[in-house]
């Protein structure tokens, strides 16, 4: 009884693939050795440079030198590109390490198999096994790799920006270097009066907006759905189509039209009110009314989808429940409270969370309807109706405060992720699924 598994595992730990060769899996072992050699070559040529880049974020600025009559560029280090390249190398190394761990485990297992008198698979059999037994893993691995490099890496990158001083005017590459500043951007944003004032103001409005816009669109849709589904309502299909129209017209178009409809002097809405002898409010120029206007506009755009969902669910509620309720003498309000509402909420609470998250970052409505106006001089680069996401846009795209924008995006992410997870775990739909498994 030889300790095959120990020998194989140790050999694989020394050089990737040696254990497999020892286990007489020559093709697999050979491939792993080749990858190992390539991996070391890659690491030796890249890791030093990328670590230097990640840690220093560059040491030389780009300069211009006058040569005769023309300036020549003397290239320097581009901090942001160094950061991205460093991350790419780091991620490749992580993948390599994962493969390394897998190879040790594989060698150990096959050694164990040999100890138990089995024979490790030949290469052709391994491939066959991969296609037959491990097909899901095989199919899922390319998307996973993509997610790793095209979702996780950018996420890590943008989080890291929050810990630098990457911002206009003094820290713009390539003419300047960017440095690691730790939590300076966080402390500035949350404690410096001018910034903190803006942050808390915009943040509280964002939360109010997300809650109210979700509630209004959902219950608006609910009310319409109930009306359409009443037994006495005729031409149901016609009403459903009519009420889908706001959703069918691109929001981009309707918002720009609404911006003019709500004009306090020239807009048709106030013209009608004037016709009835009423003076309409300043829909868009008064900070409070502007918020109300956005909520109304969003409700108009958002109720059809809730309505459609809820109509779908209403049709699935068994009729005999209502009949039984009627026999017991329930009023229509009681039927709604005890049957309709719980059934709808049971199916739709997860969707409410996604709607909440969507509204929290509802860039379009704010940007196209008011673009943050009316102006608010107490805020830094934000107006009275700006929400976090539009403020972030102003900070990064318009004003080049990338590090602050990154801090805000982290705040948004933490908030939405925690609310979503917490809510998702609480919904009954989620628990039921656990029970069904």
């Amino acid at each position: 009884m030889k300790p095959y598994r120990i020998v194989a595992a140790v050999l694989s730990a020394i050089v990737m693939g040696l254990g497999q060769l020892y286990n007489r899996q020559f093709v697999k072992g050979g491939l792993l050795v080749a990858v190992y050699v390539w991996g070391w070559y890659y690491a030796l040529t890249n890791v030093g440079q990328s670590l230097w880049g990640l840690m220093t974020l560059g040491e030389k600025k780009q300069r211009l030198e006058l040569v005769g009559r023309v300036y020549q560029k003397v290239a320097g280090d581009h901090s942001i590109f160094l950061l991205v390249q460093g991350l790419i190398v780091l991620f490749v190394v992580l993948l390599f390490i994962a493969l390394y761990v897998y190879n040790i485990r594989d060698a150990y297992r096959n050694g164990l198999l040999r100890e138990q008198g089995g024979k490790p698979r030949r290469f052709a059999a391994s491939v066959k096994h991969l296609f037959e037994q491990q097909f899901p893993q095989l199919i899922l691995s390319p998307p996973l790799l993509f997610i790793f490099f095209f979702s996780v890496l950018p996420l890590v990158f943008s989080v890291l920006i929050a810990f630098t001083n990457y911002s206009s005017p003094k820290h713009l590459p390539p003419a300047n270097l960017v440095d690691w500043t730790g939590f300076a951007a966080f402390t500035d944003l949350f404690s410096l009066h001018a910034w903190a004032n803006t942050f808390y103001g915009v943040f509280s409005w964002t939360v109010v907006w997300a809650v109210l816009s979700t509630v209004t669109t959902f219950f608006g849709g609910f009310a319409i759905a109930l009306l359409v589904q009443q037994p006495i309502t005729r031409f149901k299909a016609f009403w459903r189509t009519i009420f889908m129209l706001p959703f069918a017209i691109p929001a981009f178009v309707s918002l720009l039209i609404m911006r003019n409809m709500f004009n306090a002097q020239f807009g048709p809405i106030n013209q009608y009110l004037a016709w009835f002898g009423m003076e309409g409010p300043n829909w868009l120029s008064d900070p409070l009314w502007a918020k109300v206007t956005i909520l109304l506009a969003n409700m108009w755009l958002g109720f059809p989808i809730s309505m459609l969902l809820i109509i779908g669910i209403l049709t699935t509620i068994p009729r005999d429940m209502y009949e039984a309720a009627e026999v017991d003498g329930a009023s229509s309000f009681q039927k709604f409270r005890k049957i309709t509402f719980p059934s709808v909420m049971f199916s739709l609470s997860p969707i409410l969370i996604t709607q909440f998250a969507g509204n929290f970052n509802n860039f379009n409505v704010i940007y196209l309807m008011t673009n943050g106006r009316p102006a608010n001089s107490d805020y830094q680069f934000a107006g009275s109706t700006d929400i976090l996401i539009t403020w972030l846009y102003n900070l990064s795209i318009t004003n080049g405060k990338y590090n602050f924008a990154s801090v805000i995006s982290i705040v948004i992410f933490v908030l939405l992720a925690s609310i979503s997870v917490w809510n998702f775990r609480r919904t009954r739909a989620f628990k039921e699924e656990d029970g069904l498994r």
Partner: protein
Amino acid sequence: MKLTKAWFMLATLMLMVFSITACGPQSSDNANAGTAASNSATTGSTTTGDGSGAGAGGAGNGKGNGSAQQPAAGTDAASEEDIQPEDDAKLVIWEGSEQQAFLEEMAKQFSAKYNIPVEFQEVKPTEQMNRLKTDGPAGLGADIMVMPHDFLGEAVAAGLIMPNDFYAEETKRHFAPAAVAAVTMDGVVYGYPRNMETFLLFYNKDLVKKEDLASWDSIITFAKSYNEPAKNKFGFLYEVNNYYFNYAFVAGNGGYIFGNNGTDPQDIGLNKPEAVKAMEFYRSLREAIPIKAADITFDVKTNLFQTGKLPINMDGVWQLGNFTKEKLGFEVGSVPLPPMPNGKQPLPFAGVKSYFVSTFSTYPNASKLFIDYVTSQTSLSTNYAMTGIIPARNGMEHDPNIQKNENSLAFIEQFKHVQPMPYIIEMRAVWGPITATLEPIWDGADISKTLNKAVEDIKTAIAQQSK
């Protein structure tokens, strides 16, 4: 900050140590440039050029071109030497779609002459800088850009554009001083000016006589006789709530945004007595426009003008192509902004659209050669004929095509009284607070108090900005 670096280093090292256990000798700093992050960006953008009047800045005081020496017709480069282009150069230029036909025509001529191909890619002038920040280092950026000059501060701070070195003297000699000043920073010329953009008064010749636009008083008198607010009938409208337009009165009165020709962010002149006076004049315009400031949006007033309901409309040069008899069905005239009641000329903001050479260009010399080619007298004349932009080159007012167009001539007149918008980055901190003053002042708030607060807010923002 050292501490963070140390932590980061430690964390990374730990990671390496844990991961590469039982491996051979560790090696580092064997530097070989890492893999390039190829940041593949899609080329081609949507929509047409930028048609909004918020963008431009600079220094200098638009003294027009008194006596411009007229270079010999044809090529003005005849007497001046040209730069030697690189071998095998090929160029990419970014511009909005409205200039595409012109630039492709120029590219054809240029390639025939120098054998250097030039590719046009559609990127709006206002979006070019952000595109270049990412595309440039990745080697995908354009060689030549066309940007409004108010991007200059940031573009220079970030090291995105090359100075105008070889042709600097020529630029200074042939272009309007205000335009050259707008693309000059700390004494270094960066841009190659193409045209200036500003605004004036357009009027509907069917509804109002030119005499009614002789002074602000006559405009107010005319508007009062014409206005019927209940029917949304107004004699004169402009974007009252947009500081871009109102600064003309402040500057004309001797107020200023930043001292030292718009380059000293420590010296803010928006609440000086002159500026307060200008805002009093601004408020006096409420007699002509007796409604709330925020309701007069670009959409509303442009629509009223285009449908023949609004006699007088203050708007920019970018509307020249839209305000024609063919498109509107009535004759449109234009006059420069009349002097204010105290006799002073308003000085509207000027934006200068200018060519720039990217620092990421592999062929800077060929780029300069092409720019020199498209900013020659002949090329600019072609550009006016094809796109209607009024060149900022001296002596262009004698161009027969421009002579034929009274609105273009009115703009050339207005260009003699303009102030380029400041291009320093601190300008961004100004818009929010100063815009917030307009509504309250229009509605009767105390002017100097309101302005003082705005200036305080601007100072706070600038202090935050330069951290």
